[in-house]
């Protein structure tokens, strides 16, 4: 049996190391190309204490995204954003000391071929990849290509995923396991879904990989509650709504600091 920490890629090693100090993990999301100086948001996220940053590569038909992320994608595409341009802009950034995880739909991965896509991610300094319309049973062709390119392919688990399949997802996922908190699309919600606790508990039974809860986590209270079950949270729509409303990097830094604080408070309590 190999040591899981040694076998893990850079994103996973980073997240495991931070988790093992007792820290609640925070992964904010930004749609690449949303504004001319969108990479400033990444700097703000890192400064606010993000443990990883998710960069969305916008797609014309985002079937798993709610209204906010859809609008963000449309805005970016209307500005002329493309995979190539976003990755070029990332390449020009200094190392933030925080792993970058790209997320996009499978069509964009296939467009120039999975090998070229993964190589381009790697050149841009991206370490992980989330593809919400690539479920585990279709992931074979990307798994090996991504691994060879040094890209950690993150798989998603859902509240309705049966337990044996959950074990397969947790085993094959790299970086972390993305726990989709509810049966629905991305977007802010009034409360953390009840399904979140049960799902994370079921994932924990089969893996010690970091588990991040996403979908609908929008407030410090929700982050605090999510932290009771998972290793951390993904926050997308709550960030992008503010960006769409005109919030700048400093505003986002302040918002994420409230989430950071909530996660830190929760970790002080016995789990």
């Amino acid at each position: 049996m190999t040591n899981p920490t040694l076998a893990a890629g850079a994103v996973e090693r980073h997240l495991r190391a931070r988790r093992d100090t007792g820290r609640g993990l925070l992964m904010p999301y930004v749609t690449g190309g949303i504004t001319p100086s969108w990479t400033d948001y990444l700097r703000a996220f890192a400064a606010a204490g993000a443990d990883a940053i998710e960069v969305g590569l916008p797609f014309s038909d985002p079937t798993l995204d709610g209204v906010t992320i859809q609008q963000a994608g449309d805005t970016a595409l209307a500005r002329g954003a493309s995979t190539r341009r976003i990755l070029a802009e990332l390449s020009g950034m200094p190392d933030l000391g925080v792993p970058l995880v790209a997320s996009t739909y499978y069509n964009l991965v296939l467009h120039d071929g999975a090998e070229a896509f993964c190589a381009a991610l790697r050149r841009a300094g991206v370490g992980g990849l989330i593809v919400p319309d690539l479920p585990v049973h279709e992931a074979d062709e990307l798994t090996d290509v991504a691994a060879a390119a040094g890209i950690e392919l993150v798989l998603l688990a859902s509240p309705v995923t049966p337990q044996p399949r959950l074990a397969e997802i947790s085993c094959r996922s790299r970086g972390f396991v993305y726990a989709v908190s509810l049966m629905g699309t991305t977007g802010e919600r009034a409360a953390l879904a009840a399904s979140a606790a049960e799902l994370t508990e079921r994932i924990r039974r089969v893996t010690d990989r970091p588990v991040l809860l996403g979908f609908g986590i929008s407030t410090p209270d929700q982050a605090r509650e999510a932290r009771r079950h998972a290793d951390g949270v993904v926050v997308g729509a709550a960030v992008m709504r503010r960006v769409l409303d005109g919030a700048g990097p400093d505003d986002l830094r302040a918002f994420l600091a409230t989430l950071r604080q909530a996660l830190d408070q929760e970790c002080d309590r016995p789990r």
Partner: protein
Amino acid sequence: MRDVLPWCEPVLLDGTMGEPRARGRFGEYGGRYAPESLVEVCREVDEAFREAWADPGFRGALARLLAVHAGRPTPLTPAGRLSEALGVRLYLKREDLTHTGSHKINNVLGQALLATRMGRRRLIAETGAGQHGVATATAAALLGLEATVFMGERDIERQALNVFRMRMLGAEVVPVTAGSRTLKDATSEAMRHWVGATGDSHYCVGSVVGPDPYPWMVREFQRVIGDEARGQCAAELRTGVPDYVVACVGGGSNAAGTFAGFADTPARLVGVEAEGGAGAARGRLGVMHGCRSLFLQDDDGQITQAHSIAAGLDYPGVGPEHAHLRDLGRARYVTVTDDEAVGAAVRLARTEGIVPALESAHALAWVIRAAGGGDLPAGSTVLMTLSGRGDKDVSTLKELL
């Protein structure tokens, strides 16, 4: 000539248009590229469909609904005057004469019956021209189910009468304002809604697209067109089988159902796409709406907007089985322009007394253009599926003519 694909001799392959291979594959196309939250419900639909399709009770109940409610079998009409003018023998499979006026009802009655068998109480559907939405609303009313239909705002403007029809039948029509506000966006929105409603709702996909098992299941529910036509041709034609089988292709459900009846014959299969929505003729390999197939895309991999005067052909992709039939050379995919389709609709009206849907007029436009040339030699027998009636398009035509 815009048709660039080589014409291959029909390839008779055992099992062509049979059950897809493992993991819902038609060659390299198909599959179940669904978000994890939809994977389980796709599996449930697959299991339920397999059981139902093997169950004579289900088959009998569906056959009865198709007969007493939808008006099947539909006739095979020889287009006498047009045949004479074109120098080919043209037969029309009259799906326009079904209840609700298009072939969509065949699939919808099958899926609605399946939904009740699965204990679902509500149907979700996407619609472009409104024909699938009307069919879904109809089947829901008939079987006591609720119906929610997603329709692009732009299509709602173009097809106001069908919107009214759906509402009159008791369906909820949800305008979709995202993206291009047409069929592809309505499909995306229906999928988003389904993610949050899998417990009580069945997504009644309207074409041979979507995650496995939909492309296969919808083709099976539509194969009644091809099976009936096969029998009618056997009785009507000296040769028993037509030389050419022609149907229009948006996602491709009426074509798939028609072709299924003739895949194991020497008939040449021709799918006719709209010039501005030619997924099979000009699409590039991709993944959208749950399956791997051919889609119109720009240089960055974004799906581009289709443009057609026929709202039902306004889809930038094509069903995975059509992509496979294209690669095999078993079917050929050609395109016609809006103008050609309108011209064909008028010509059918004036020679045969039939006003076709603009979608179906595309199939006819190819027959008119090709007849007498190398692609469709004089004296050939042609079976063409007339997938729907033109009532919904009368206001569009009125502005043009």
